């Protein structure tokens, strides 16, 4: 089921993904009263990293060298399953979002084991947190998904987004809002954003994602950074697809509306990061379980509404 528009959307997403952290940082700089780095900063960083040569720890094994490729390709592979705006994904089948989540899971497995590979005190710390928080976030993602599957009657993510309409928001505003909030929390958790993790912190003790890649350099780091940006793009895409659901729209408008939606998500993340402080680590599991609870409430509302 491959069509040209889908491939076009996919390639476009590959090029645009690094823009996303740039927008977030610009928003944060704005709130901080600063000028901030240019929106395209990550492109420059990636370009710079690609031209450096790598340094490896003497403790590192083959795993450290393989992991960036696994993380990179698994994340991109997940992108193939992500529908473009009103376009089916390059590859769709029943239950594809589960496969997508598990592709991100294998990327995480490599990230975590590679972190343990260097035998660093800090990287182990990040790994230990990452595995727990992501395990807790999984049910929230799937419960929200389940409600949407039930609403639309489609088992694939492309089908769900094709079926969603403003009617769903009008009929069940509470349910849709609960899912949106729950998925927003999942997004913040999975992508190591404030209030779960601070991508810009200077204290390694408090980090989760950044601390796991302390030992990476050059092309390896570029691949991991890119994969992180792309993962953020994927989750934001889910959120945009959920919220903006107007079926009758001229094809020409698809991209501008989608871009505006993505921009708004980035701004929202930036605003959250600027206005909320990072949580204490012991409170994070409650925060994530809370998102699962929201999704479950949405589900119960749906069941009760039957």
């Amino acid at each position: 089921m491959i069509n040209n528009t889908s491939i076009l959307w996919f390639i476009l997403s590959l090029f645009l993904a690094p823009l996303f952290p740039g927008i977030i940082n610009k928003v944060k700089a704005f709130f901080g009263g600063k000028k901030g780095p240019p929106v395209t900063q990550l492109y420059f960083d990636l370009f710079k990293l690609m031209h450096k040569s790598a340094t490896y720890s003497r403790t590192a094994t083959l795993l450290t060298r393989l992991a960036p490729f696994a993380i990179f390709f698994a994340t991109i592979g997940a992108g193939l399953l992500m529908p473009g705006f009103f376009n089916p994904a390059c590859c769709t089948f029943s239950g594809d979002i589960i496969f997508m989540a598990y592709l991100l899971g294998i990327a995480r497995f490599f990230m975590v084991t590679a972190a343990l590979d260097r035998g660093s005190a800090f990287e182990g710390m990040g790994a230990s947190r990452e595995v727990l928080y992501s395990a807790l976030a999984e049910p929230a993602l799937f419960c929200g998904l389940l409600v949407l599957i039930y609403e639309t009657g489609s088992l694939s993510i492309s089908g769900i987004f094709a079926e969603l309409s403003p009617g769903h928001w009008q009929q069940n505003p509470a349910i849709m809002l609960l899912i949106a909030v729950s998925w927003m929390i999942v997004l913040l958790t999975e992508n190591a954003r404030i209030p779960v993790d601070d991508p810009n912190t200077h204290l390694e003790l408090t980090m989760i994602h950044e601390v796991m890649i302390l030992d990476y350099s050059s092309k390896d780091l570029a691949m991991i950074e890119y994969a992180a940006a792309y993962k953020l793009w994927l989750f934001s895409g889910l959120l945009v697809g959920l919220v903006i659901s107007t079926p009758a729209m001229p094809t020409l408008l698809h991209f501008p509306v989608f871009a505006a939606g993505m921009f708004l998500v980035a701004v929202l993340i930036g605003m959250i990061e600027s206005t909320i402080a990072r949580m204490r680590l012991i409170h994070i599991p409650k925060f994530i379980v809370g998102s699962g609870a929201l999704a479950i409430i949405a589900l119960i509302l749906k069941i009760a509404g039957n």
Partner: protein
Amino acid sequence: MQLFLTAILIIIVGGSFAGLFGRMRNLSSAIGALSCLAGCAMALVTVCQSLFFASDTGRYLLNLPLGPATLCLDQVSAFFALPVILLGSLAAIYAAATAHYDEKHALGSYWFFYNLLIASMLMLLASANAVLFLMEWEIMSVAAFFLITHRSEIGTVRNAGWRFMVASHIGTAGLFILFGLLSASAGSFEFDQFLNAPATYGSYSTIFFLALFGFGVKVGLIPLHVWLPDSYTFADAHVSAVLSGAMSKMGFYGLVRVMMFLPVQQASWGWTLLFGGLLTGVFALITALVQHDLKKVIAYSSMENAGIILMALGCAVLATIWKLPAMAFAALAGALMHILNHSICKGLLFLGSGAVYFGTGTRKLESMGGLAKSMPFTALAFGIGSAAIAGLPPFNNFVSEFLIFLAGLKATRLGTSSALLLSATVLAGLGLIGGLAAACFSRTFGLVFLGAPREEKQPPPMEIKPLVRLPMAILVLAIFSVALLSPWLLLPVSRVVAEIGAPAGMLFSADDLLLSAVPLRAISAFSLALIILVMLGWRIQKSRFSKGEVQDRPTWDCGFAAPNARIQYTSSSFSQPVSEVFSSIVRPFRHGEKVSGLFPQHASFRTEAPDSLLRYLFLPLFALIDRLVVPLRALQHGHLHLYVGYLAIALLALLLWKVAVI
């Protein structure tokens, strides 16, 4: 069928000869392993005939004192024979190749019971008669007991063995009642007669729950699992592999077989299986995450996978009731594939844990680390096994878990509240289990093989011999074959599914197969592409872009100039957040000194978490029973003539009862 029975005979005879020549260690190992291999190869021929060519393998009548007993191998039995044959033969190679690591213990009895275990499982699968089934079930348990207690001079091993024996007999007691009810209703011991027999004695529900209890003990259904972690931990690696990969699967076989006798299924069974499986899986993983013994982690993970399989069976029951063939197909195919996949992965992990033990002489996670440098093959195999058992693509367990997810998704079609509840349980439950399993096995793999060695070992760890690697290499190959060939493997599995579904009136069409096969095709294509791209990318980087790389720097530790192995995360510290979040379930013991003063000199922290259900449910329960039955010891005085007197009194009482009451 003759071939299959000959195979069983060869295994038993070989085991007996190996037992006779126990003094000559090499000869004993050679006879034991070769006869097991030969027998397994012959049995595989029959199994393949039945599975892949769907040919009837015939029947064989055995004359027992209680009447003739049928031996036959239908597709369901043949499918369940696969893990037995696979692990039975590979573990035999492994055992023979590692026999020289332990010169202290006699080999004769070991091989005898090993071959007896494998033979009894094959015989169990072939027996279509309740008496024969129970006999084989009992032989299997006893053989397993002697294998577990092989090192009986160690107290913990004896304890584990006794716990296994007690649990297994409590379960068997349930099975005796179960088959008693079934054969009383059918008027025969033959399985053929059980089919569609009216439930004269005991309702269908009684029979189902007795089966769930009796077979649940073997598979490790919560809370009947308390024997499982210790037995798997203290047995030798290859024995654990067979116990977890093959023997626990016999529990599922029994459950499926009994459910095939019952023409009507009830929703309460499905929900019990579903939630029982979910609780088993989550509890097992949370407990596994706080263990410090390598084999105990793997043992608890067996329980987790049993939970997943039970959930799938629950979905299948409910789908049958709701008349959703596509969902029932996905659930049953997922359960069967998961049974096979789990055997492959668990065999690999247990054999790998044995290799680690031979290399380092310990099972303690706290004192390992950095083994990937000294044991690269074991590290690679164990790493693949870890990612696979965590249910991640591109490995095999993901395929079966995906099918179960798919079954959960398909329930939404029905649109009722209970269907939605089922979907939510499957999706959220399996999602949580998957996440925790990934946590558990990235921790295990990381602590054992990665980083720097936490303790200096004398002599330094050595890689295992090539012959010991062979079984592990075959299992790695099996992982990739199942993962990449899954859409095609679904065809033979679909025939087994059809046979399981038929008695309950579930008929599957080709469409149901296709609905499950289409996503699997995409997944196997993705998996293949992922493997190729990662390997290709790494090769290109290595050959083209590795100029100027620096390979010998210390690990960056945020400016700390002298990092050493002691600053690494340990098993306690890695699982600290988990034990904190789930402390009400695992109830860990914390040991450690408070850090005080400006320059604290001594500080330590350690957590321990023995099975909480054992501590809070079974130990108090058995202590109570102990107190109640101690007075009865007065009757057990050792005088034989009085025991004969008891017999006479009992007979007299029965006679009186017969005369007076009936």
